[in-house]
């Protein structure tokens, strides 16, 4: 099932007296439970693409749909429900411990405190950082910080996780663990749309795409399951 679709999306930003085109007629579809990674050089527009896909930014042209709904009409509510945008930076100085950061997110959505706490711990277990529950953001190493960010996203139980450069700045030893985690989310049915500037971040994906000069290249549409012809029933045609 197509979960997310971008149709001929364009985005421009003002530059000096003119404009700079960041995305040009970009089309893309992401299936449920699919893990798609976009590779691009710095300044290629990969972060813009992800923010538009998540409904955080609006495109100048084209349409973005999530589960068939136009994000232009339902952006904020979908971002809260179906799409989880993985924000890797957490406002510093709040002094909140990791488990509290997750719990607060749920309390703000009206979840009862006991339930919120249970879900927060479950999300930390899922991202394999239960041992970080009582740490603050400043006490986390680079790999654990990404896992906490993913836990903050997953706690809302999204259908699609959008994550910008999940392995950037992560130590080599931790990088594959994060890629394995993203792969496992897709295997559980959660779609993942990620970006990377390093080819190592492409491993494990179902599809990888290149973003350059504002255009997306590669297999833009998920592979459909093969259509198998029905065997003809004895004495007549197969139903249909």
């Amino acid at each position, binding site marked *: 099932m197509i979960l997310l679709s971008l149709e001929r999306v364009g985005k421009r930003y003002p530059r000096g007296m003119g404009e700079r085109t960041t995305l040009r007629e970009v089309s893309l579809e992401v299936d449920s439970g699919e893990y798609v990674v976009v*590779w691009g*050089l710095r300044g290629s527009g990969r972060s813009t693409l992800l923010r538009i896909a998540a409904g955080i930014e609006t495109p100048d042209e084209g349409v973005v749909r999530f589960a068939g709904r136009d994000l232009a009409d339902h952006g904020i509510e979908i971002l809260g429900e179906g799409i989880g945008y993985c924000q890797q930076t957490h406002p510093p100085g709040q002094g909140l411990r990791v488990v509290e950061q997750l719990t607060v997110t749920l309390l703000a959505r009206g979840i009862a405190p006991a339930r919120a706490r249970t879900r927060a711990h479950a999300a930390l277990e899922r991202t394999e950082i239960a041992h970080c529950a009582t740490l603050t953001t400043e006490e986390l190493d680079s790999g654990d910080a990404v896992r906490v960010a993913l836990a903050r996203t997953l706690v809302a139980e999204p259908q699609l996780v959008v994550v910008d450069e999940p392995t950037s700045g992560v130590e080599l*030893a931790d990088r*594959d*663990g994060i*890629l*394995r985690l993203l*792969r496992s989310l897709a295997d559980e049915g959660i779609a993942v749309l990620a970006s990377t500037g*390093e*080819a*190592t971040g*492409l*491993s*494990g*994906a*179902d*599809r*990888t*795409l*290149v973003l*350059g*000069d504002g255009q997306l*290249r*590669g*297999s833009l549409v998920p592979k459909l399951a093969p259509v198998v012809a029905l065997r003809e029933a004895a004495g007549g045609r197969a139903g249909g």
Partner: protein
Amino acid sequence: MRSIVNWALLGLVIDRSSYAYELAQRFERTYGDALALSSVSHVYTAIGTLRDRGLIEELPGTREGRQPKPHYRATESGVAEYREWLGGQICEDRQRQRLFIQQLAALSRHPEAALEILDRYEQACLEEACLTPIAAAGKDGRERAGELVDRLMGEEGRLAVGPKLEWAQYARQQFQALADAQQRGR
């Protein structure tokens, strides 16, 4: 010695001493579709060549018993020559890439065709990166050669794809500029 199969067999003997039939099995497991033996007797011929050149030698005491299975191990000269040959392979890889670039540049009057080739080049890079398995959790250094090969191949594949994709972006810009210039000249 020109036969790549002989060099590959020498590499297996360097990794671990083996008898002929075992070598044939290890060869198939290691190289799969990448390199093929014409038959098991191919291994016996190769062993003869490697012995004659002093690159491998019979392990003493392994020819005895009712069913002798002479094991072979690499000589010092075998290891040294293998290292030398492997160094040469690095240059060959570079030459193949340079040859591809020269052949692509031959399409400078047909930039659209070159851009289409670059699309396919990029696609092949993406597929390689996509298919590269994510490395398993860290080992304690006691892994077998097969596991080491998988880990080294996976990492080499992933790290090599990045610069290739960057180069494809650059080449695309160059050919796109040629295509635009052609368009303006019409």
